[in-house]
């Protein structure tokens, strides 16, 4: 089959880098990039809860760089509502259709919602786009009481940013500790102390019933019967992959679109997926995973573009030790690897806020939490790739 036109669905980090990568792989045909957001170049997302929300960066600094000779047709402010795979067409929200020979799925993820909270209520915010970050920043300028629902990476970063503004902040988390799903209960307790000691009121292990108020939000009602006064509520309970438009094509869409190890969507020979939306078997850990990190989208874009342009015979597997970072207060938090069980403090001390903690699975080191230790992190990334046994690990550290 000749590859004359490639459509990239999604114009954020993964889509943009995939578009660049298909050019890098030598594709000279029509390249069409469709994105739901109007801004181009798109805004990078990590600064939206930090530098942009803090007002530290002028707007354009938050935009992604784009290579000079991308030579792509951009279709912005349009959503793809359906993939007609048998016809090799995507259908847009204005009813138009675009045919393709190759397709990159890079539609990312959308904030997870709570059925009990109407996010159009004045004072209620989610944080995924540049416009949402600016809207939240403007609201924070009026010295509100802030309640954050969800103590994942975004919730914790927004809490830190709000404390930086000197605001009263309460964080509600359903799990017993903040960041527990990523860092586990032991280091979750450390994260709780990080936020408490800097003045955040944490309400842990409790669900949210809803929000109340006259005209705008005034209170968050919790399932234990208590409530929190709040003029600003940020809903930050994670994201769900944007796969609704792929339904009806016999793809496996359970928690992202299922790909093979080369990021080709299963059941296709001309569709690949990258970033938050893609689930693939990562041979590094022998697990099928979906990773929402910045670096994952960038690295997958290169591999997926290679798979799409050169075909199955030349395709290479994407084998990775994932990397994610978070900046909270004066802490540079970096995690390499995948989720595991707390093993031990490998270096430094928690009291000094400078340490490396190891995580294991079946006796093998699979993850390392590095705090204020950037020079060590990349050594651990390589170390984890060698599948080190945790037994006697202190004698074998990188």
């Amino acid at each position, binding site marked *: 089959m000749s590859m004359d036109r490639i459509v990239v669905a999604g114009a954020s980090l993964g889509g943009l880098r995939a578009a660049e990568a298909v050019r890098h792989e030598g594709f000279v045909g029509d390249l069409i990039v469709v994105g739901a957001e109007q801004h181009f170049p798109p805004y990078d997302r990590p600064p939206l809860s930090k530098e942009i929300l803090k007002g530290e960066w002028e707007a354009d600094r938050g935009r992604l760089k784009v290579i000079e000779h991308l030579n792509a047709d951009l279709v912005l402010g349009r959503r793809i509502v359906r993939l007609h795979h048998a016809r090799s067409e995507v259908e847009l929200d204005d009813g138009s259709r675009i045919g393709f020979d190759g397709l990159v799925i890079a539609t990312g993820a959308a904030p997870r919602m709570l059925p009990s909270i109407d996010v159009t209520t004045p004072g209620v915010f989610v944080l995924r786009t540049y416009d949402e970050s600016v809207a939240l920043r403007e609201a924070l300028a009026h010295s509100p009481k802030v309640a954050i629902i969800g103590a994942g990476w975004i919730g914790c970063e927004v809490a830190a940013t709000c404390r930086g503004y000197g605001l009263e902040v309460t964080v509600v988390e359903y799990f017993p500790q903040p960041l527990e799903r990523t860092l586990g209960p032991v280091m979750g307790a450390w994260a709780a102390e990080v936020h408490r000691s800097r003045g955040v009121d944490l309400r842990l292990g409790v669900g949210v019933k809803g929000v109340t108020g006259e005209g705008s939000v005034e209170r968050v009602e919790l399932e234990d019967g208590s409530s929190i006064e709040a003029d600003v509520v940020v809903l930050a309970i994670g994201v769900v992959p944007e796969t609704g438009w792929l339904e009806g094509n016999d793809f496996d869409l359970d928690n992202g679109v299922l790909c093979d190890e080369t990021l080709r969507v299963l059941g296709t020979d001309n569709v690949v997926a990258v970033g938050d939306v893609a689930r693939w078997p990562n041979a590094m850990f022998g697990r099928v995973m979906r990773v929402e990190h910045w670096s994952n989208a960038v690295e997958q874009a290169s591999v997926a573009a290679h798979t799409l342009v050169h075909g199955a015979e030349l395709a290479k597997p994407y084998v990775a030790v994932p990397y994610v970072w978070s900046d909270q207060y004066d802490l540079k938090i970096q995690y390499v690897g995948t989720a595991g069980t707390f093993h031990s403090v490998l270096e430094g001390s928690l009291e000094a806020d400078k340490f490396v903690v190891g995580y294991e699975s079946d006796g093998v080191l699979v993850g390392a939490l590095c705090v204020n230790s950037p*020079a060590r992190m990349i050594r651990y990334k390589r170390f984890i790739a060698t599948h080190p046994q945790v037994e006697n690990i202190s004698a074998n550290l990188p």
Partner: protein
Amino acid sequence: MKITLNLDLCAGHGQCEDAAPEVFTVNDEGLVAQLIENPGEEYRAKVEDAARRCPADVITVEG
């Protein structure tokens, strides 16, 4: 190949060292340091990969 590093932007992500360990390292202050001043063409693919993978846009490759 000429490489320019904007150290003001560097946040110690270490992705450059991961991509091109012969050319870049992260020092104890958590900042990128260059191990080869003007790397030869044999490193181009790795250096370009390092630039692309840097979340802070620290690395510019010229020529």
